[in-house]
């Protein structure tokens, strides 16, 4: 997988590895095809399944978008950021506040949320996570857990629990071969893909991206060739947080803004990150699409069960059988 920022060095990426990834993609694709076929038999209605697939993929794009920041942080810093969902909620509130105050188009609030979350990311990493106190895995888990509780309940304390909504001006509903799709969903999906590509390009083709990949694959080695590892860590964390800021602006017309909205996205984001392989940005996007599909198909398979149940079943299976993710390789 060329997009991975984990330990794959270019020279080890022999043709056989590419072949293996292709083969795995084939297996995943076949599984998806079978799952859709079973759903088709179960529901007996093509249009229902088609609507589910389209909705699932579009929602999945959003999951992928949210998971990208998380996977970047995990891949480079080895930090499981439990506060990612809370950061998303903070960004949503910023976006909501800006729309309320200035009447700006929701998507344009990205101009505020992205720099704001970048700054928050810098502060969180420098203030809480870097240095010896944030060294062990347990401490990082606990600090980010504490941070998420702090942010969520801070929002609750100051803004209350009532859901807030931001409408998309000129919202339309499109017809995609018989499936009805809200315009805002489609735009969010397009934004997710664009952001994924931008992030991928940044990692592969800029000096900063190269430094980030170097630090991810070998921290001490990167230090030896003159890379300021602590600075790269802070920047990566901030970029990851900024991704949540971008995701918030794209998703704000789709969701009710509540202090705890991050919780549900945090769960799916972790599933997506593990599925796509921790640290793999493109994997996160693909994982997001798969999870979106799984959610929708679960509601067809298991009538009355929560759509999240299927997500967790997939999650546990992946954790046990392929903890390196669908597209990663065991180290």
């Amino acid at each position: 997988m060329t997009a991975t920022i984990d330990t794959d060095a270019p020279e080890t990426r022999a043709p056989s590895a590419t072949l293996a990834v292709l083969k795995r993609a084939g297996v995943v694709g076949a599984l998806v095809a079978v799952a859709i076929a079973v759903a088709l038999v179960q529901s007996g209605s093509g249009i229902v399944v088609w609507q589910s697939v389209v909705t699932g993929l579009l929602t999945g794009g959003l999951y992928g978008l949210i998971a990208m920041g998380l996977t970047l942080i995990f891949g480079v810093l080895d930090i499981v950021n439990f506060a990612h969902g809370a950061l998303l909620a903070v960004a949503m509130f910023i976006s909501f506040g800006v729309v309320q105050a200035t009447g700006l188009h929701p998507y344009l609030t990205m101009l505020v949320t992205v720099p704001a979350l970048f700054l928050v990311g810098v502060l969180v990493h420098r203030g809480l996570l870097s240095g010896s106190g944030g060294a062990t895995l347990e401490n990082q888990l606990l600090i980010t857990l504490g941070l998420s509780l702090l942010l969520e309940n801070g929002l609750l304390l100051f803004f209350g629990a009532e859901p807030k909504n931001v409408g998309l001006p000129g919202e339309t509903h499109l017809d995609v071969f018989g499936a009805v799709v809200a315009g805002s969903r489609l735009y969010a999906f397009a934004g997710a893909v664009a952001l994924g590509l931008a992030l991928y390009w940044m990692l592969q083709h800029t000096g900063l991206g190269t430094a980030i990949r170097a630090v991810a694959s070998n921290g001490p080695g990167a230090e030896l060739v003159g890379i300021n590892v602590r600075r790269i860590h802070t920047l990566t964390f901030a970029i990851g947080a900024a991704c949540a800021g971008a995701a918030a602006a794209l998703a704000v017309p789709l969701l009710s803004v509540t202090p705890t909205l991050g919780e549900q996205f945090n769960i799916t984001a972790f599933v997506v990150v593990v599925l796509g392989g921790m640290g793999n940005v493109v994997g996160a996007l693909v994982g997001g699409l798969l999870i979106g599909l799984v959610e929708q198909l679960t509601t067809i398979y298991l009538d009355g069960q929560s759509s999240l149940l299927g997500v967790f079943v997939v999650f546990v299976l992946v954790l046990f059988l392929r903890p390196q993710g669908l597209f990663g390789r065991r180290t």
Partner: protein
Amino acid sequence: MTDTAVESRRQTRPGAPAAPPLRPQNRQFAVLAVLVLLAIPLPLILPSAQGAVAVRILIFLIMAVGWNIMSGFGGMFSFGHAAYFGLGAYTSAYLLVEHGVSPWVGMAAGMVVAAAVAMVIGYFSFRYDLKGAYFALATFAFAEMLRLVTTSSDVVNGAVGYQVPLIQGSSVWQMQFPAGSPAYFWIALVLAGGAVALSILFRHSPAGRYVVAIRDDELAAASVGAPVMRHKLLTVALSGAITAVAGAFYTQYYLFIDPQLAFGSSVSIEAIVTAVIGGIGTIWGPVVGAVIVGSLSDVTATLLATPPEFLSFLQGRSGLDVILYAVMLILIVRLMPKGIFGTLADKISERRRR
């Protein structure tokens, strides 16, 4: 850890003619006995509102002791102790409501169920070698799955949950007393005291020593012949069983349980935060943490009900207690990673050594 404190005392008084120093577990049992004796008259002294806080402290205490056995002594960082709390709560509630079984029997059954589930989850996690973050995420996933399944299963009343049927008068066998009765506190005290006693026993048993050795260096422990899998499974089973007790008692005390209260992630978080604030991997850390975390929500509730001038805009809002313990959690992890009790114990033993 506490053992070092005792050792240093031995060194400073090598030729003390008096009775030989107590073995650490006996000293800890003695402290526990004193604490329990001191706590017995509390519900008679405290006003009834504070009596409820005291019971909540004891519930937190049991949860934190359970979590600490697996994640503190065992080093297996669980993010899903709500699973065992909820299994304890639901097993006893189900048996009581649907079959009229005494909550005591239900509690024991809940312990068995929670221990069995903990061993199954543990077996697969260890078999597939899940470590650190992956293990934490897996435990979290199992707790969430249980929440989702109970929410949508009519067998256990779905999202509605269970209401404990009220009886006339009071009955120890039915574990039900008039509201505000000191009996609730005493039962919780016995359960919490038992939980701490179990954790002391476990810490000093061969199994407990093995588990701590495995936590510190699994490869080394395995290579000197420690049966790693067996002891890890024993640890998670014990941890799950103790946490289930908290769940079963919770149901009896609050007379109500639903999937969110039983399996919600906030339950897992409460167990973690309590143990971490007090001190991970120590006997008394969960006790200290429970007193702090358990009383915090009451303090903030009174504060927000009648806020001082500068906080008046917060009147009637919720979330302040969680904010306070979140801040405390972050500060403690950053500044005193051994928790309040662990850090104090270290300071004292250091002074003795000097």
